[in-house]
């Protein structure tokens, strides 16, 4: 990879970073960052709408005064953590890159929205290679290959089923998250307080 031209390489790999970063600019220009196509006017195409749809941002657009043309950040409206994250997902998928990297991209997105986005990504996959970094097991359990890292080393590799069968680090992590989900779902059988 060190022999490839950097600009070309970066056009092939699109990343959603852990900390979503958006500019104080319109939502459209933020999503189209790094896209060779014009942001507005003739020849814009439906790419932006498609990306917003895929990242589950479309539903939120109605809340914004000018839809995709709304200015965000210091000079405009403030987005929630989840909206920011979904906008950066839209940005990464817009050019349909051969490689897509999602680095803890769903930390501020609720589980059902995350599921919808993952489903959309899967449908639009084609030959795309996806690298998903996640803390939540639910984000990655359908992956073809899961690599478990511990202090910088790959300690386990395999599919969800294979790793569970190994009863190692991954299985422990999975058990722990099951417990956590179980706790959050818990309802008082009597329905009242106390």
């Amino acid at each position, binding site marked *: 990879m060190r022999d490839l031209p950097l600009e070309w390489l*970066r056009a092939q790999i699109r*990343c959603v970073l852990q900390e979503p*970063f958006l*500019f104080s600019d319109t939502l459209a220009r933020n999503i189209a*960052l790094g896209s060779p196509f014009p942001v507005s006017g003739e020849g814009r195409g439906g790419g932006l709408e498609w990306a917003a749809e895929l990242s589950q941002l479309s539903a939120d657009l109605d809340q914004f005064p000018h839809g995709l043309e709304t200015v965000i950040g210091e000079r405009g409206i403030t987005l929630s953590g989840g909206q920011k994250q979904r906008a950066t997902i839209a*940005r990464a998928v817009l050019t349909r890159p051969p490689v897509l990297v999602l680095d803890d991209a769903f930390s501020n997105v609720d589980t059902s929205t995350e599921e919808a986005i993952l489903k959309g990504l899967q449908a639009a996959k084609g030959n795309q290679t996806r690298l998903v970094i996640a803390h939540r097991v639910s984000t990655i359990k359908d992956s073809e290959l899961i690599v478990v890292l511990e202090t910088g080393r790959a300690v386990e590799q395999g599919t969800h089923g294979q790793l569970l069968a190994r009863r190692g680090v991954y299985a422990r992590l999975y058990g722990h998250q099951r417990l*956590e989900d179980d*706790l959050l779902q*818990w309802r*008082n059988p009597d329905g009242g307080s106390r």
Partner: protein
Amino acid sequence: MNRRLWRLIRPHSTLLAAAVVLVLLLSLTELAGPYFTQQAIDRYIAPRRLDGYQWLAILWFLVLIVNGLARYAQLQLTNVIGQRVMFNLRDAIFAHWQRMGVAFFDRTPVGELVSLISNDVDAINQVFTGGLILGVGNVVSAVFIIVFLLLINWSLALLVVGMAVIMLVAATLITRRLRQAQRWTRSRLGSINGFIQEAVSGVTTIQLFNADRRIRDDFDVVNQEYSRANLQSATLFSIFLPLMNWFGAATAGLLLWFGGGQVIHRVLTLGTLVLFIQFAERLTTPVRDLADKLAIFQTAVASAERIFTLLDRPAADADVATTSAIQPGVLRFDHVWFAYQGEDWVLRDVCFEVAPGDKVAIVGATGAGKSSLISILIRFYDIQKGSIHLAGQDIRGLDRREIRRRIGVVFQDPFIFTGTVGRNISLGEPMTPDRVEEAAAAVYADSFIRRLRGGYDYVLHERGSDISTGQKQLLSFARAFAFEPDILLVLDEATASVDPETERIIQASLLKLVAGRTSIIIAHRLSTIAHADRIIVLHKGQVVETGTHSELLARQGVYSRLYELQYKDQLGAS
């Protein structure tokens, strides 16, 4: 508005009056120069006389000394007044902030507060040092000069006054546009700074998305706007200064033209003509500055408005009239509902009681509302529904200071101030060094403090960056112990970064601290939970279970799940 500004100034009215007197004196001595020149020409130079000429020189020299002294005193005085007003204003603002509720600081950006106490206060200072008094001086000088000229030769005086009026109008017009241009320049500078800041913090995103060229294009736009704004200011400036000079020269020319004729016809002496030319020149400065002074005053009024708006915000404790002492007694949460915003309930219908001497542990998953419980109890925020009673009194009727004196809070990531270890324990309360050391020893903080160079006199860095997390926790325990609160609230967050030995000391220290004291512990350590008389389980803002450890485990509800998730692993560790 103006009346409030005046109220700021009133305590210094004697000094202000002195400053005005000095300005009058200064204006008078300024008149002396042209007058003495006239006398020199008409009495001595033109008639070619020398006897007595030295007296004129000596007199002029004396006036110059008075002028210098008056100018010194006046500058000194205006600065003293300005500094005193600023000092009092900063004091008032800072004192007011200390009395504001926590919610105020949630909503107000720090930058805004800093700007208020520095920039806005300084703008008001400008009125004293630059604007008000010198403005008065300018007007007085102008009036003196005009009256003086009218007395000597009214026709030439009217010529000078006419030119001065035209100049004033021109200066006001250009200054107004200049101010606008300067405001525009400043706002462009702001956006260029903002742009750079954003481009630097977003540099990974920019490079990953090959957007460097696009960002450079965007930067060109703001860069160009800034340079255009600067040029606009410069253009106005380059019109303003020559125009004013031109008016000055034109007045001198007109005086020479009309006055010259009068001199030749012997209606006017040569000295008087020189006097007129010199005075016309001296009139230029006050006229030119007057427009500027007005603008300074406007800025100050805007700043004063911002400051007064802040000072008018009711302080958090404004509603409490009585400062009745709090009796120890039962603490009762009665159907408490609380939200930080609107109907986003963080606590829902919470009910429980804590009897004096009881140790209660509160447990729950992240976001269950545990910390909010503490915030409302010490009245950082007030609840929306229900009530909290302490010994039968609603805490909303109690003085916050009294509440916080009786209810001690121990944070696990305590704030450490720059200062000695001793002062970080006593927090500046009058407390003997023995008392401080006793408290530290009681919670086993003594041994680590003694190892610091200087012991209790060791000066800690800002936020305690030079001691470990565990040591900070021990310090906060000592702090709480020294204050001997009736009720103790402990946020007991087990921290990963503490070594087993320190963890052992912290656990022992914590148990010592809560021993024999009414305590509510937001617990994360199994050891603290195990020592509690009762455990209250919070789940999504509601109390779902209460009981002892074994009772709750048997219920197979939230607590048993929490235990599986968070506490079970600690069995081996502790």
